[in-house]
């Protein structure tokens, strides 16, 4: 036993010795590196370090349906500072402050609290050429100053399309959370409105990473490190909009100087050919450094320049909404087209008197005539015949009162006042038929957006087929050049019979082509246009002028809504605009057809 113990002991000691020797060798090596050669390695470690540079991907471009370039990229340079190096240099901060690049204290603020002392912190968003040259000339005295390219949008065409496109800007905290922290970080530029926002992830592409070796002054020694190959950026995908740029331009000119909206849809598939909201802004505004004052001026402008009136503006539709009453009454078999009313120019209901337009006495009218001449009295009575429940039901059937979920985020639903709604606001006994008759002619609590009106009239023109309005036609991958078409969503309003649509369409034809049609100003020889005017009373000022319609009546290819805020009479102000752009559209397309 003892012998065994002794042997084991001996073995143990041999191992202990052997292992200790090897450990001592290790310790000696560390001693040599850390004590004897400390200076050498310290200076070497100062001399080189790797910097990870994020490379912004090129943002996807935006074209119109014909391939005209609407939104392009233009490189801009931003100036960033590396906190570690700047805080150790005596020159950098004074240089920036003395040359008026930034106000005093700003730099200290920005680099103070970052943990990542080797990563650049953005200081100046877009530097001009003069500033850039100055920084370059003094590079040796300015360690830790780096330039990065930043995406800036550039709009080569004269057409604005402002609200459709939206704009890009620096990301905020909420957006980082909703877009995902794994791909986005503070300082990134993202879409803030419109298509730029809705399709942010598609347009953005993927960031790349470059690993470069720099010396203690921050100068690049080596731009490629084998252990850490660069990660290439992936360019953002391009978007082809449904917008017809020449048409859009023309419509923008039509509304120039005024307030309002024009929406033009392709009735065959819901593609938005033109979406104009005036007043608008020059999209190039966002591509340069603007001051806080300039931004305030833009965003607080009382004419609400940044609002997309076409999708967000909620207005009373006026007489244009009479069509709902007509459709409802016909479909529910409450009336036939021969149902007549006599209009003396006014209508008495209880103690109130409601008038027809300019107190015109229309005399005895059937449905088609009532539509043609937009007789209020006819529709006051019709409204009472159908009642609020049916009226609201049909309004909702035609998708009023809710958003269409189209492909820009800015959209409002409007309002369809149901019985419950009215009870809620006024109390059960707080409202009467007096309110109802007003709503029947598109006044009162009923609110719609120009987009909804265009989609509405498209559904009538298509005799029940509703296509979801959309702005994007296809998305193109920059590498493969593959184009993915956006799916067209459609819906059929089957509750309403074809017969009803045909009657209403006849009425709308008369509006434009009848002798007494309120929309005569839209008439174009050779093209059958159907439409409806509207003059919406507005408590804040002049009436809003509406004109909605489609062409050609039998098999529409185009549907539209025009709204001129405070424009006055629909037939006088809005209808002529329709004539103008429809003329242009059909002429241009005939030419295109002829060319093909």
């Amino acid at each position: 036993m003892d012998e065994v113990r002794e042997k084991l002991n001996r073995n143990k000691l041999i191992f202990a010795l052997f292992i200790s020797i090897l450990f001592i060798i290790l310790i000696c090596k560390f001693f040599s590196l850390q004590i004897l050669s400390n200076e050498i390695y310290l200076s070497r470690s100062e001399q080189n370090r790797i910097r990870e540079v994020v490379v912004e991907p090129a943002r996807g471009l935006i074209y119109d349906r014909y391939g005209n370039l609407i939104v392009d990229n233009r490189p801009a340079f931003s100036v960033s500072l590396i906190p570690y190096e700047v805080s150790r240099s005596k020159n950098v901060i004074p240089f920036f402050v003395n040359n008026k690049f930034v106000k005093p204290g700003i730099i200290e603020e920005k680099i103070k609290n970052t943990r990542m002392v080797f990563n650049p912190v953005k200081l100046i968003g877009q530097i001009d050429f003069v500033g850039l040259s100055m920084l370059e000339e003094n590079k040796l005295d300015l360690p830790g100053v780096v330039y990065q390219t930043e995406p800036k949008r550039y709009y080569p065409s004269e057409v604005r399309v402002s609200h459709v496109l939206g704009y890009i800007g620096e990301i905020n905290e909420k957006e980082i959370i909703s877009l995902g922290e794994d791909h986005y970080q503070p300082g990134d530029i993202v879409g803030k409105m419109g298509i730029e926002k809705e399709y942010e992830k598609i347009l953005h592409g993927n960031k790349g990473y470059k690993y470069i070796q720099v010396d203690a002054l921050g100068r690049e020694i080596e731009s490629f490190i084998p252990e850490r190959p660069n990660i290439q950026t992936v360019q953002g995908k391009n978007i082809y909009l449904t917008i017809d740029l020449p048409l859009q331009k023309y419509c923008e000119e039509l509304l120039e100087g005024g307030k309002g909206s024009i929406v033009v849809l392709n009735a065959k598939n819901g593609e938005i050919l033109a979406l104009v909201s005036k007043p608008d802004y020059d999209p190039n505004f966002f591509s340069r450094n603007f001051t806080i004052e300039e931004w305030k001026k833009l965003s607080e402008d009382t004419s609400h320049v940044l609002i997309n009136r076409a999708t967000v503006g909620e207005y009373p539709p006026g007489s244009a909404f009479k069509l709902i009453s007509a459709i409802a009454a016909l479909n529910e078999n409450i009336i036939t087209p021969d149902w007549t009313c006599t209009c003396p120019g006014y209508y008495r209901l209880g103690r109130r008197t409601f008038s027809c337009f300019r107190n015109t006495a229309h005399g005895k009218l059937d449905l088609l005539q009532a539509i043609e001449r937009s007789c209020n009295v006819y529709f006051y009575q019709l409204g009472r015949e159908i009642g609020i429940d049916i009226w609201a039901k049909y309004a909702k059937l035609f998708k009023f009162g809710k958003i269409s979920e189209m492909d820009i985020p800015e959209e409002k639903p409007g309002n369809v006042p149901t019985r419950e709604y009215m009870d809620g606001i006024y109390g059960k006994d707080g409202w009467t038929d007096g309110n109802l008759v007003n709503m029947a002619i598109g006044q009162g609590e009923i609110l719609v957006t120009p987009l909804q009106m265009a989609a509405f009239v498209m559904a009538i023109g298509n005799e029940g087929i509703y296509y979801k309005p959309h702005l994007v036609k296809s998305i193109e991958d920059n590498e493969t050049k593959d184009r993915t078409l956006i799916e067209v969503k459609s819906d059929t309003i089957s509750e309403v019979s074809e017969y009803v649509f045909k009657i209403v369409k006849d009425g709308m034809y008369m509006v434009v082509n009848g002798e007494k049609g309120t929309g005569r100003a839209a008439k174009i020889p050779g093209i059958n246009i159907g439409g409806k005017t509207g003059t919406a009373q507005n408590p804040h000022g002049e009436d809003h002028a509406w004109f909605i319609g489609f062409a050609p009546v039998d098999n529409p290819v185009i549907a539209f809504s025009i709204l001129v805020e405070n424009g006055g009479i629909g037939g006088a102000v809005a209808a002529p605009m329709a004539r103008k752009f429809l003329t242009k559209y059909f002429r241009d397309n005939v030419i295109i057809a002829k060319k093909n």
Partner: protein
Amino acid sequence: MKKKSFVKKIDFIFLIPVLLIIVAGILALYSSTYSVVTSETSSLVYKQITWIIIGLIAMFVMIFIPIRVIYALSYPLYIFGIFLLVTVLFIDRDTSGASRWIYLFGFQFQPSEFAKITTIIALSRFLTESKISQNNIKDIVISFMIVSIPMILIREQPDLGTSLVFAAFLLPLLFWADLPIFSLFVIIAPFISIVAISLSTSKVYIFLIWMVILTVILYLAKKGIWVTISNYIVNLAVGITTPYLWNRLKPYQQERIKNFLNPEMDPRGAGYQILQSKTAIGSGGFRGKGFLHGTQSQLRFLPEQQRDFIFSVFGEEFGFLGVITILGLYLIIILHGFNVASLSKNRFAGYVAVGISSIFFIHVFVNIGVTVGLLPVTGLPLPFMSYGGSAMISFLAMVGLLINISVNRLKY
């Protein structure tokens, strides 16, 4: 009363150093993933902590399993280990052409780690019952085979470093089993020949010097003519065939060895890593740069850094003082392991303790040796510090076994 006996069942000479090293490892891991811009980072620390917790559970399990149960299960566990190694070869190779992992319930798991433990246990059991001390050839051969099978399977994966680990505990175990020294020498000699011939590519005389040394030893051993001549032949043969075998190494393995020999030659190449490691360590100085103040950001972008160069990160930030502290802690664990082996009345347990201590030693010496440029990069993890779940759990399980053996050393 339960509490008292529980505490008695723990050998704190193992436990405390292990826990301290674990803490050091977490600090180093946290620091190494700290200043990277992309977000693929600090989750590593949380994952590692998860592995540590699981490992500690495994450790406690191993503390309380009776040794005789382990003894009884030695061979079945070994075979299961082989089975896993074979299985992993048939699973799809990963992106770098290696297949080392099995995915189980969504967790990655390295069978080679498991195989290390099972092989030690199986070999220990075998040696307990064998006649190695009497130069029994059959027993020697079987010992080799027990180790070679998993070694070859692992090397096929391919994982050169891990297969070397197997060789590294075989020799101590044979020695502990009282294999006569000369026999040990006979086994080791060819490897020395390989090293000698490799070094001779630049300095031709090295191999010749070795042959001279060989002659002297053989003469002094006086083992008879046949033994002497056969040894000569074997070693010469090895010396001649090694260059041929060199060409059969995969390029990256060749590169690793070449760059180890002269890292300065190609700073952009693989030797770069070692250069950066030495720079990091050297720049740490006596007291280190301080927690989170290491500036060797180039290391921070290397994924292998969390495994192969974790000690460099530590060395940069905690300096020479930190380094000798941790080395001291490792030394305590390893030496105590051999101590426990010598004190254990259960021979099997003694072998197991030797095997485990050898494994710890080899990993510590090789991994840290790499970071200071003594050895080419091998991919061996540093116990309790390198990032990696399988390794952490298996090392902690091994510590559990050591504690078990220590506490029960007076039992047979």
